[in-house]
């Protein structure tokens, strides 16, 4: 395809590298160096989208990330990305883009009839119209509105690309590589500072790329090349293009998004699409420039109306002509550059409409040389439509009217410094009358604005301010090298007569992305929404994806005018990051799907997987839940087999996930006395004891066995879930509460693979594993014994005679690297005894049969007495939680306490969560006496059993109560019973 609007020469595009692309299915070509927008301009495409509310035809307004209109769906399928700015999307070969918010086509959009109803689609329309009946909102109004209004469609399948997160550290981070940013980088870099220069664009240079100029006597392009070469030669200066500094956070941390591979159809293999940077910098120079602002007039959204500076970008940087016959509407000196550039590119200039009373003699002579009229006045209307601008109506100063024929209109209403970054910590910018703009008023610590971002619009001033800011930042960061001298350029006079809104017939848009008009703002004021924060929310001004970059200041200027206040009195809304939209995927980085969090595998994991174990996620851990065997029809069959194997023979379970802490020191016992409700200082060496710890508020925190391996060495275990928190809690006790104690804590959770070996044949199996010299008899190793033993082959292990299952049992810890070998040896040595590996389900069944409490009972609301463990409480010492545990409500006689339950119908299945209600009463909150905490099918009793927290439960053994389960629609009776269903006198575990 020919590029009808491509200029014959010039620009920073590579004419030797043509690229094909499609827009709405139609094929076009552009060049390397184009954006999608510039390639569309070069192909004469003016209509690129339909507006949000009225479906009005829209074109390209800007040439940067402030673009409100030219939003497209980029790419297709899983990589389809909605609301992508054509003005920043780099062109690549094969690019596919589609316009948004139109049906059936961009040229013929059914919903554009909304324009006919425009008088009703005013500010607050939704609030006023869809109020009643309330239930209609979700069912009818919202779905209909969402279909009619809106932007692009997101992909509907998971994003196939990877995103990365990275940290960087430097002395000075600089936002923007225009003249101010480059001068700052030069000064800081030469001083020896570590510099990171972030540039949003894919080429450094900022406005130099479009506006040129003369610096140090060189044409801007030459100076730019020389400067980039010098910066490239400095080892500690890093220029990051395609990278937007989007936010500033506490302590000199800055957020930046790097679009690593957005300029390619898809990222090369093993590369990420985008990378989220957190940059820690001692100083920050904001050289983010300024954005040219529109003037609001009727028809200002017609395709072909474009910011004057954007028009220069398209002509100079991209060699693409936005129009053949251009008019300029300006209220300031700078806009006239567009006329010079257009004439230089051989384009016609139809007229200049200048709102100022006076123009310079130089411009007057330019007009006579260029043969175009200068009209003093304002554009008050545009004749045109989806094919673009045709004719302009001009209200001349003095009241007369004129018409200008043109196919493009450049608009300049002045410049707004980019005050986002400097204002993100609730800073409010201040108004400067001389440039009629807000400029930063202070900034977060360590940050300073320079150049146009600080209201210094001339090229010379930008270079000077940037250089000084860079040199000062380096000095503040402790880099005292010689910064040399600042680049020099002329300053231009900046003359501007503020003009925000031209009265006229027809819609005059303030916020083009959200279709907010000047009359919407006037209406908001009439209805009492005068404050800028109310104005914003009522009209949605500035709330679209562009965050009002081109519209906010004009909006509040119009509000100021209708309220009779000044602009600074009207004030700005609060600025919040991010400066540009950042994909959630970039914030997530690699932390998605199976990598959402770390996965912890026990030392036995791979062995268990070989055995076909089914794993369950327990916190970060994968734990073997059961080990199915061929022919078993469901989990219950497998679990039942495992329980029976343990109760009848021997089995083993991986309990490596328990938290394990070595406690050393002369005061180790005294320390444990203060953190547990029971006493450990009197525990004999070689013995283990079950311990219960409380929170300081008296509620149970965690439990586990702790063994005394030597006079000054205890080995403490925690539950799997609380391992990290208990360590933190104990460190707090040790370091903050009891620093006088001589005690040290070492987390050894990952150092040991731990097995529970249980069942009447445990000792037979252990004899095959443990060195024959070790005495495992009841006398030599009694119940609750604990000591280090040697295994056959010499490996040292820790052996504990403790039982969770109620059977004769040991727990054995071996160094983690021997865990898998240990499992294999147990299987081989245990073959004659029918050894059976069992999972967490069987473990749970056996603990419920034994009435041991676990997570569901240690719920963060229960006391030691609630759990039936009140007798453990020592009255002879102080410990964490002692005093608060004695509070009235925590010792009340009607508390819900742990008891056992059995269904009266023996065939009935129990489910946890059911509420306990007195028999014969209608269930309700008033007679809710507790709930079922844990249930299992007990193979030993051949029926379902459970544990429950029931009011005064221990006094009610034998009582029949009602279990009410409204969630599952179940109601049945259960009998309250002793929670120890199996071997209540504990003979088996001591045997």
């Amino acid at each position: 395809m020919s590029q009808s609007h491509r200029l014959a020469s010039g620009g920073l595009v590579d004419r030797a590298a043509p690229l094909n692309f499609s827009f709405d299915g139609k094929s076009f070509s552009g060049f390397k160096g184009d954006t999608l927008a510039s390639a569309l301009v070069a192909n004469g495409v003016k209509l690129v989208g339909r507006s949000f509310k009225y479906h009005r035809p829209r074109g390209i307004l800007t040439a940067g990330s402030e673009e409100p209109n030219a939003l497209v769906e980029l790419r297709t399928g899983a990589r389809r990305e909605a609301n992508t700015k054509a003005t920043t999307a780099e062109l690549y070969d094969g690019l596919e883009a589609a316009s948004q918010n139109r049906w059936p086509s961009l040229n013929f959009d059914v919903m554009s009839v909304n324009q006919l109803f425009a008088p009703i689609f005013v500010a607050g329309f939704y609030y006023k119209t869809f109020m009643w009946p309330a239930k209609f909102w979700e069912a009818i109004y919202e779905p209909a509105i969402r279909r009619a209004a809106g932007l692009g469609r997101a992909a509907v399948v998971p994003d196939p690309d990877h995103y990365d997160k990275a940290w960087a550290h430097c002395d000075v981070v600089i936002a923007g590589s225009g003249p101010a940013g480059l001068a700052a980088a030069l000064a800081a870099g030469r001083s020896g500072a570590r510099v990171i220069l972030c540039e949003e664009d894919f080429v450094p240079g900022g406005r130099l790329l479009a506006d040129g100029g003369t610096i140090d006597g060189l044409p801007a392009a030459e100076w730019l090349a020389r400067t980039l070469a010098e910066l490239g030669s400095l080892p500690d200066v890093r220029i990051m293009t395609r990278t937007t500094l989007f936010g500033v956070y506490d302590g000199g941390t800055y957020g930046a998004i790097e679009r690593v591979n957005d300029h390619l159809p898809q990222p090369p293999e093993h590369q990420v699409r985008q990378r989220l940077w957190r940059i820690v910098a001692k100083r920050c120079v904001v050289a983010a420039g300024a954005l040219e602002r529109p003037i609001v007039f009727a028809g200002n959204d017609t395709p072909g109306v474009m910011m004057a500076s954007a028009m220069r970008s398209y002509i100079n940087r991209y060699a693409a002509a936005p129009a053949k016959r251009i008019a300029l509407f300006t209220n300031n000196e700078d806009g006239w550059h567009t006329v010079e550039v257009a004439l230089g590119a051989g384009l016609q200039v139809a007229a200049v409409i200048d709102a100022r009373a006076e123009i310079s003699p130089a411009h007057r002579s330019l007009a006579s040389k260029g043969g175009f009229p200068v009209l003093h006045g304002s554009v008050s209307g545009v004749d045109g439509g989806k094919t673009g601008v045709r004719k302009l109506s001009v209200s001349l100063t003095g009241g007369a009217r004129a018409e200008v024929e043109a196919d493009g209109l450049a608009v300049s209403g002045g410049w707004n410094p980019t005050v986002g970054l400097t204002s993100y910590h609730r800073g409010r910018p201040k108004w400067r009358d001389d440039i009629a703009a807000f400029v930063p008023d202070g900034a977060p610590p360590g940050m300073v604005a320079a150049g146009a971002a600080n209201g210094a619009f001339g090229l010379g001033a930008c270079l000077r301010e940037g250089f000084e800011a860079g040199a000062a930042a380096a000095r503040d960061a402790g880099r005292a090298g010689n910064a040399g001298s600042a680049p020099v350029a002329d300053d231009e006079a900046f003359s501007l007569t503020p003009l925000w809104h031209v009265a006229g017939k027809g819609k005059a848009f303030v916020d083009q992305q959200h279709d907010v008009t000047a009359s919407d703002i006037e209406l908001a004021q009439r209805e009492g929404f005068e404050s800028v924060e109310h104005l914003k929310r009522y009209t949605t001004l500035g709330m679209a994806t562009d965050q009002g970059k081109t519209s906010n200041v004009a909006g509040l200027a119009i509000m100021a005018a209708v309220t009779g206040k000044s602009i600074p009195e009207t004030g700005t809304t609060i600025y919040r990051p991010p400066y540009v939209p950042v994909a959630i995927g970039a914030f997530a980085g690699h932390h998605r799907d199976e990598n959402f969090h770390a996965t912890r595998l026990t030392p036995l994991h791979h062995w268990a997987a070989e055995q076909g174990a089914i794993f369950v996620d327990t916190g970060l851990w994968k734990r073997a839940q059961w080990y199915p065997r061929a022919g078993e029809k469901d989990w219950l069959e497998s679990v039942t087999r495992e329980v029976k194997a343990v109760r009848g023979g021997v089995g083993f379970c991986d309990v490596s996930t328990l938290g394990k802490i070595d406690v050393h020191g002369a005061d180790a016992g005294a320390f444990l006395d203060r953190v547990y409700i029971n006493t450990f200082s009197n525990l004999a060496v070689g013995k283990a004891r079950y311990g219960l710890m409380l929170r300081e508020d008296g509620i149970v925190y965690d439990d586990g066995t702790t063994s005394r391996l030597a006079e000054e060495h205890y080995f403490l275990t925690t539950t799997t879930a609380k391992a990290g928190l208990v360590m933190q809690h104990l460190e707090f006790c040790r370091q903050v509460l009891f620093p006088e104690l001589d005690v040290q804590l070492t987390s050894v959770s990952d150092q040991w693979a731990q097995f529970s070996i249980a069942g009447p044949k445990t000792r037979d199996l252990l004899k095959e594993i443990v060195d024959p010299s070790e005495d495992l008899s009841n006398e030599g190793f009694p119940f609750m014994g604990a000591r280090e033993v040697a295994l056959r082959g010499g490996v040292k292990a820790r052996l504990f005679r403790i039982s969770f299952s109620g059977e004769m049992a040991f727990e054995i810890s071996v160094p983690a690297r021997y865990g898998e070998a240990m499992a294999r040896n147990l299987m081989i040595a245990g073959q004659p005894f029918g050894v059976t590996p069992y999972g967490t389900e069987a473990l749970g069944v056996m603990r419920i049969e034994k009435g041991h409490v676990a997570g569901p009972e240690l719920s963060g609301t229960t006391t030691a007495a609630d759990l039936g463990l009140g007798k453990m409480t020592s009255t002879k010492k102080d410990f964490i939680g002692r005093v608060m545990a004695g509070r009235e409500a925590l010792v009340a006689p009607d508390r819900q306490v742990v008891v056992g339950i059995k269904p009266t119908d023996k065939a009935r299945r129990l489910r946890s969560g059911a509420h306990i209600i007195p028999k014969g009463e209608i269930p309700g909150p008033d007679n809710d006496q507790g709930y079922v905490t844990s249930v299992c099918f007990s193979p030993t009793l051949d029926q379902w059993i459970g544990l429950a927290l029931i009011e005064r439960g221990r006094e009610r053994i034998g009582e029949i109560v009602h279990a009410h389960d409204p969630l599952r629609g179940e109601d049945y009776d259960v009998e309250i019973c002793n929670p120890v269903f199996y071997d209540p006198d504990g003979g088996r575990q001591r045997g």
Partner: protein
Amino acid sequence: MRITCPFCGERELGEFTYLGDAKPARPAPGASEDEVYDYVYLRDNIAGVMDESWYHGGGCRAWLKVTRNTLTHEISAVEPAPGAGARQVAK
């Protein structure tokens, strides 16, 4: 936010866990229920400079007393807890 751990140097927020007001001191054994109640539940919520307990769980496991301005997040001092293992740490 960044906290300068006396043992590890300046580290980012994610390595630390916040506990809260560092001022309340645990009453001695034998204290009344009211005293312990105050210690457990009553906390100042200062808009300005306050001492807070932070845990460097992602680093050296030291508990720290961090003096922070809750309005600006400015941290003016970081001290190790008395039992954190260093009586004196170089500033």
